[in-house]
C-alpha cells in the first residue's frame, strides 16, 4: 500500500464515524421534537460560517491542541496522562503570576518568561506523577488524577487567599506587555473572538513534538519504551528517566495551554478556566493517533463541537449536546478500530 492510500484509509475511519454520529445526533434531536436540519444549519453557520464564529472555534481549538499534544506525548511512552487538566491549570497560573509580578519587563523578555513559566509549571506538576511512577511504580493514571484534584485545590486556595480581586473569581490583570495579541486587533478578522497569538505557539508546539519524538535521542528512547519496555531494558535505557522526561514534557505542553486563556484572552487567571480541555485532549490524541500534525484538524473539529454546542444552546438542551459529543467520541474510536482491523492500517 503506498503512502497516499494509507493516509486516505486512516482518515476514512474518523470521517465515516463523524457522518454516522451526525445521523445519530439527528435522531436524538428529532426525538426531542426539534428539526435536526435547522439545528445543524445553525451549528455550522455559526461556527465555520462566519469569521467571528470561526475565531471562537479556533480559540477553543488552540487549548485543545496543547492538551492533545500532552496526551499524545505521554502515549508515545506508553503512559496515560489524565492530568492535563491540572497541569494546564498550574501552567496558566504560573504564566499569570509572571504577568502580575514582573510588571516592568518589556514584552521581549516577559513573553518568553511567561511561556517558560507555563511550560515549567505543567512540567513540574506532571513530573511529580512521573517521579512517583518511576520511583515507586505507582500507576500514572492514579497519580495524575489525584494531582488534578490537588492542583485545582492548591491554585484555588492561592487565588482565593492571595491574588483574588474581591467579589470575583479571578486574579488581577497581567501586565499589558505580557499579552498575546488577539487576531481581531492584529488583522481585523475574527472580530470579537478571542482567537489569539497562542495559536501559532500551538503550531510551534506540534512541530516541536514532532522533532523531539522523531529526531532526537530522547524521542527514540521514549518510543522504544512505549512500544516495548523490554527492548528498552535490553538496550540499557533508563526507564525511570524516560518516564520522568516524557511526563514532564507532556505536562509542559499542557501547561502551555494556559497561555491561550490567560495571556491571549482574559489577561487574568480565572478559576475553572480549564473547561475540561485536559480531558477532551485525551480524545483528541486518540483520534489523531498521537500524530502531532493530525492533532490540529482534530482539535478544530472538537472546537466546532464545543462551540457549536453553545450556539444551539438556545434550541437544544445542553445535556443533548453533551450526549452527542460523547457519542461522537465513542463512535470515532470504535469505527477507527474497525477500519484498522479491516484494512490493516496502522500509523505509528
Amino acid at each position, binding site marked *: 500500500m503506498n503512502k497516499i492510500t494509507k493516509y486516505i484509509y486512516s482518515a476514512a475511519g474518523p470521517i465515516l464515524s463523524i457522518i454516522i454520529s451526525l445521523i445519530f445526533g439527528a435522531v436524538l434531536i428529532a426525538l426531542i421534537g426539534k428539526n435536526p436540519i435547522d439545528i445543524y444549519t445553525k451549528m455550522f453557520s455559526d461556527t465555520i460560517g462566519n469569521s467571528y464564529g470561526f475565531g471562537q472555534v479556533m480559540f477553543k481549538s488552540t487549548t485543545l491542541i496543547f492538551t492533545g499534544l500532552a496526551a499524545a506525548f505521554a502515549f508515545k511512552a506508553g503512559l496515560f496522562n489524565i492530568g492535563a487538566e491540572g497541569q494546564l491549570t498550574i501552567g496558566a497560573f504560573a504564566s499569570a503570576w509572571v504577568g502580575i509580578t514582573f510588571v516592568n519587563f518589556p514584552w521581549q523578555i516577559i513573553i518568553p518568561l511567561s511561556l517558560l513559566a507555563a511550560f515549567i509549571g505543567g512540567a513540574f506538576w506532571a513530573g511529580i506523577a512521573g517521579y512517583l511512577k518511576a520511583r515507586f511504580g505507582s500507576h500514572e493514571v492514579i497519580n495524575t488524577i489525584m494531582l488534578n484534584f490537588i492542583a485545582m485545590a492548591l491554585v484555588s486556595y492561592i487565588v482565593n487567599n492571595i491574588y483574588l480581586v474581591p467579589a470575583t473569581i479571578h486574579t488581577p490583570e497581567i501586565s499589558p506587555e505580557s499579552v498575546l495579541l488577539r487576531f481581531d486587533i492584529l488583522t481585523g478578522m475574527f472580530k470579537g473572538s478571542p482567537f489569539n497569538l497562542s495559536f501559532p505557539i500551538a503550531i510551534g508546539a506540534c512541530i516541536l513534538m514532532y522533532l523531539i519524538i522523531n529526531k532526537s535521542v530522547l524521542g527514540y528512547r521514549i518510543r522504544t519504551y512505549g512500544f516495548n519496555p523490554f*527492548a528498552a531494558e535490553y538496550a540499557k535505557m533508563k526507564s525511570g528517566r524516560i518516564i520522568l522526561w516524557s511526563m514532564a514534557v507532556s505536562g509542559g505542553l499542557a501547561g502551555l495551554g494556559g497561555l491561550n486563556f490567560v495571556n491571549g484572552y482574559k489577561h487574568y487567571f480565572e478559576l475553572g478556566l480549564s473547561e475540561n480541555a485536559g480531558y477532551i485532549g485525551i480524545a483528541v490524541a486518540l483520534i489523531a493517533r498521537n500524530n502531532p500534525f493530525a492533532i490540529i484538524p482534530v482539535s478544530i473539529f472538537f472546537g466546532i463541537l464545543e462551540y457549536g454546542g453553545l450556539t444551539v444552546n438556545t434550541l437544544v438542551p445542553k445535556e443533548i449536546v453533551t450526549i452527542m459529543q460523547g457519542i461522537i467520541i465513542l463512535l470515532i474510536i470504535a469505527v477507527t478500530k474497525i477500519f484498522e482491523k479491516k484494512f490493516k492500517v496502522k500509523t505509528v
Partner: protein
Amino acid sequence: MREQTANSVSVQLIDIVKSFQAGYNANDHVNFSAYPGEIHALIGENGAGKSTLMNILYGMYQADSGKILINGKEAKFRSPADAIKLGVGMVHQHFMLVNTFSVLENIILGDEDTFRFDVIDMKRSKQKVIELKKSFEINVELDDISGGLAVGIQQKIEILKLLYRNAEIMILDEPTAILTPQETEELFKTLAELKNSGKTIILITHKLGEVLAISDRVTVLRRGKVTGILKTNQTSSNELAKMITGRSIESQVIKKSAGGEKIILEVNDLYINNDRGSLAINGISLIIKEGEIFGIAGVEGNGQEELAEAICGLRKISKGTINIAGIDDFKKSIAHIPANRHKYGIVKEFTLEENLILGREKEENFSNGWILNNKKINEFSEVIIEEYDIRPENSKALMEGLSGGNQQKAVAAREMTKNSDLVVISHPTRGLDILASEFVHRTILEESKKGKAILLISSDLSELLKLSDKIAVMYNGRITGELDPKSTNENEIGEYMTGLKSNKR
C-alpha cells in the same frame, strides 16, 4: 509407501495465492499435495512462504485465491476449528499447553466430543487416550502436571492432542529445533509409527539432514513459488540446498585455532535467582579469553538464559563475581543477541533502520548525543542490508513486516557490528535457513578472529561443535561437563545435557 493414485491424495492445495502487502505474494500460485502414509518435507528459506502456506492449510489464514482439497473434496476453512473437523491439525513451535493441567486434561481440553450432557466424560476420554498411546507407542504419564515436563514430552502431548481429535493430516513446524538428539530420535520413531498407520505428515524444517533421513518426498519453496517437488531417495543435500537458495553454497566453514591469552570474561562462583526466586545458577565459574568461542550446551531452562542476562547486566547476581576486561561499566557495551528476540531484541513497530541502532543510539555515528543523525543511520542501514542480505531491502520497512529470519539477521547485524570485546549470543541460528545460518556462522568466526571473546549458547549441537573452541554443558544450573569439540560428539553431549553423565564435582 502405499500405492498412490489421484484418488488417494489426502491434501491438495491448488494455485494458492496469498498476499500481505501489495505487489508481493507470500504464496504465488503454489501447488502442493501429500498422500496418506507419507512424510512430506516442506523446505525453503525464511520468508519463502512455508508458514503462510501451512497456516492456510490449517485455517489460520484464508487464501486470496486457490482451492484446498481434503481427500478430494473442496474445503473452506475459516478457522483452525474448521480444519480440525476435517482432520487437519498443526503442532506449533511454541506449545500451547496449560501448565497447571495434567497431561490428560491438556489432551482433551477443548474437544467437543469429550462432553456428554455437558459433563466431561473422563473415563471414556482416558480410555481413548490410552489406546492412542498404545497404538502409536507414545510414552507419556497421563497424570503428570504438564508444566514441568521436558520439551520432548510436551511435544508428544501436542501430537496426542491432534490424534485425540482424529487428525489424519498433521503439520509439524520445525519440531526438532528445541529437542535434544535423544528426543529427536524418539520423535522420528513416533513419526514413523504415524506414517505406517496411514497418516499424512507434513514437516516444516530447515535441517536437510532430517529431510533426507525421514521424509518420503520434498516440496521446496523459494520466494513464494514452488521450485521443486522431489522424491527424497532421488535427491541429495546439495541439490536441495541449491533449490532452496537458487545458487550453490559452500558449506565449509573454516575454523581457526583459539586466540590469545588475554582474559576477557571471568565468572567466579556465580549464583543467580530466576524470576520465581529459586536458584537458576548454582555456582558457575568460567573464563573466556580473547578470540575464543565458548559454547554452552544444555536443554533449555537449565540456567543458560539467566547466565547470559547476568553477564549483560540485565539480571541481579545473588552471589559471586563477573569481571569483564577493559570495561568499567560493563552494563554498557556488551554485544548481546538475546534468546527471546521478539521480547527483547526488536521493536516491531519500528523501521528496520531504527532497530539497527537499538541500544546504540548514542554512538557517535548515529547521533551527537541529543539529535539523531538520520542520514548516517540510513547509510549504516543500507550497508548492513547489503552485507547481511536482509529482505526486503528497505531501511524504512516496518520490522513486524519482516520474516523471523530477517528480523534475526537484523539483531545479529546490530550486535555483531557493535564495538565490544565480548559477544553473548543465544541461539544465533534458530529459525534461520541454511544460507542465513552459514552467514551467521561465518560472521561469528570472523568476529572471533578479530579477537572478540564469544559466549555461544545454543541447543543446536552441530552448531556448537562446528564453532566452539570449548563446550560446557549446563544442567540444573551447574556446568556438568567441559568438553573438547574435537574429541566429542552429539551423543556424548546429549548424555551430559540430560544429566546422565557428569565430569565435574
